[in-house]
Structures are given as C-alpha cells and as structure tokens.
C-alpha cells in the first residue's frame, strides 16, 4: 500500500487566500496527501469554506489549533472549549507546569516546545513518561534547522538529539512537521526525514514521523469527532425506532 505523507504544521496567512492556495498546491506536488492548517480559535465557521476552496489540490485538509496557555488551568479551559471543534490540538509549552499538564491530558495531540529557547524545552524523562501514558506526541518543527546556522543550529540539534532519544525510549510518537509560512522552506517528506538524520533519528522512525504517526492522529481524532462515535471501539451503526 502506498504510504501517505503528512505535514501537520503549515502556518498560513488565511487573509491571503492566494498564498494559501499556492502553498497547498505546492504541498500536493511535493508528495503530501494530508496537511494541517493552523487556524485561530475564532476561525471555525469558515473552515468548511476553506476546504471547498482547496478541493482542486486533491489533498486531505485537517484543521489545527495551537494553544499557548500561561497556566495549566488556562490549558484545561481552552481544551474544554475547543477540543470538539478542531481535528488537531497542539500545545506550545512555555512553562514546566503547562508542559506537564499537556503531557498527561488525553485531549492534547501534539507537544511543541519553543525551538530556540533552549531553557524552555521541557521534554525530559518525566514529561515523556506522562506523554506515553496519554496520547500526546512530540512535534519537531524543521523550519529552525533551515533558517538557523552555526552555534544556534548546533545547540538546537543537540537538544533535538536528546529529546528524540528520550521520546524513543518511552515510546512517545515523534511527528516531524515543517512549521513554515513560506513556500521557499517547504521540503519533500523524504527530505524532512533526511533532516532528522542530523539528530540521530533512524531512517524507519524518521519516515514514520512524516507518514504513519501524523496520519494516525488525524484518523483517531476524526473518528472521535464523528457523530457515530460513542467510545473507543463502540460506534452507532443505526438510529431509529426499529433498533
């Protein structure tokens, strides 16, 4: 069966629909079959319109919300409000408390850490253990690896190497995303996987990080968001008086 490649982090300017269309088409030509577009929390109503607009690209579109809470309470409040409105929820963890809460909450899909603020990358063994018991995955954006050079990139690679090893040790799925807002930095899925070689992720894990791992998240969440879903493994087959 042909592998489906996915990029779960395209940061598009939704006011510029021409650019959105151009980047989605580019993703399609690069070989992606599923992409996630980050929407602001207020944009939910127009998501369907965007889907119609991009139908020509023959690419599966998922909608994602990035939360940046300051406290664990703010995170749970936001999750309660938005979980059922978006297919993917990512949390940018800017404090340790938020990171721990996000890792143990089963409503969080992706854990993201500030790329270049090395003191605030809280993905350690405790975080990984919490994430492995919940459903959260570690998301690694590749954009800083393309834009940075010299000592900053070396430090970033060192952090990523440590985090990837911890994630692997605790069986936390790794998701490799582009995190780009510009066509210039878009890369083919295999090229993103090749960049993962720089932080010692093996070939199989790197390919899974751009294909089966992100696809599994979207598939799981779509099932949960469907009207037929009752609980994991239980679905409504038929409604009506004769049931």
């Amino acid at each position, binding site marked *: 069966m042909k592998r489906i490649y996915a990029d779960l982090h395209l940061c598009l300017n939704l006011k510029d629909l021409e650019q959105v269309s151009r980047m989605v088409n580019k993703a399609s030509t690069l070989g992606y079959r599923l992409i996630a577009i980050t929407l602001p929390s207020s944009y939910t109503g127009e998501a369907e319109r965007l889907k119609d607009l991009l139908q020509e690209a023959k690419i599966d579109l998922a909608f994602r919300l990035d939360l940046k809470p300051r406290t664990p309470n703010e995170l749970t409040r936001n999750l309660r409000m938005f979980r059922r409105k978006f297919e993917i929820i990512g949390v940018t963890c800017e404090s340790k408390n938020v990171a721990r809460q996000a890792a143990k909450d089963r409503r969080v899909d992706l854990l993201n850490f500030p790329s270049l603020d090395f003191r605030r990358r809280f993905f350690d063994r405790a975080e990984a253990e919490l994430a492995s018991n919940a459903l959260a995955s570690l998301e690694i954006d590749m954009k800083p*690896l*393309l834009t940075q050079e010299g000592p900053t990139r070396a430090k970033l690679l060192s952090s990523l190497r440590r985090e990837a090893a911890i994630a692997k040790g605790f069986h936390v799925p790794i998701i490799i995303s582009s995190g780009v807002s510009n066509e*210039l930095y*878009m*890369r083919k899925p295999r*090229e993103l996987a*090749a*960049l993962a*070689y*720089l932080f010692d992720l093996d070939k199989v894990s790197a390919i899974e990080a751009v294909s089966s791992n992100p696809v599994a998240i979207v598939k799981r969440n779509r099932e949960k968001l469907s009207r037929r879903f009752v609980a994991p493994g239980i679905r409504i087959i038929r409604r009506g008086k004769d049931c």
Partner: protein
Amino acid sequence: MLKRVKRRYLALEIDSGEMFSSWEFMDAVWSAVSKLYGEYGASRTRLALISYDMEKRFAVVRLVHTAVDMVRAALASITKIQDKPVTIHVLAVSGTIRALYKKIRQ
C-alpha cells in the same frame, strides 16, 4: 584487500526563479555539506558533479553510498545560492546513471 567503493547517483531539481552556473551550484552544495559535517565529514562524501543543465535546472551528483543520508540532509538545508532563494529537491537515487535516468523517465 581494499573494498570496492559503492557509489550512488542523485538526480536533483533546482527549484528557483534564477539560473545558476554549475560552479555556483556545487559551491553551495559543498558549503552546505561542510557547514553541517565539517571539512572531514565533507571529504568522506566523495561528492562530484556528473552533469548539470542550467536551463532545465537539473543536476546529477555522485557520492559514496554511505553518505546518501548526509548529503540529502545537507541538500535540504540549502535555502540560498549567491543570496538568491532556492530549494533543491532530490528526484531520484540510484546505483548507476542508466538506472537513474530510467527512474526519472518513469
């Protein structure tokens, strides 16, 4: 006894609005490889330009088979040549030039 060197050929597409000479292109590739792996690492790739079509923005490079992942990562990290924005995509990888062109045609 010396081991036979296994080679790989990479077909590359240069995605840019500008045109670059083969020298400018290879200079960018070498500097990306040496930025990431240092001069010692770069020397172990045995990178060489086999063919270059400036108008079609297409190139074929040769390297040792152990360095494919290294060079792929380095090529992905290239964002500029001579301060002009560029992206380099790998179209195909093969062990012989003949098979490489066959893959591209497919």
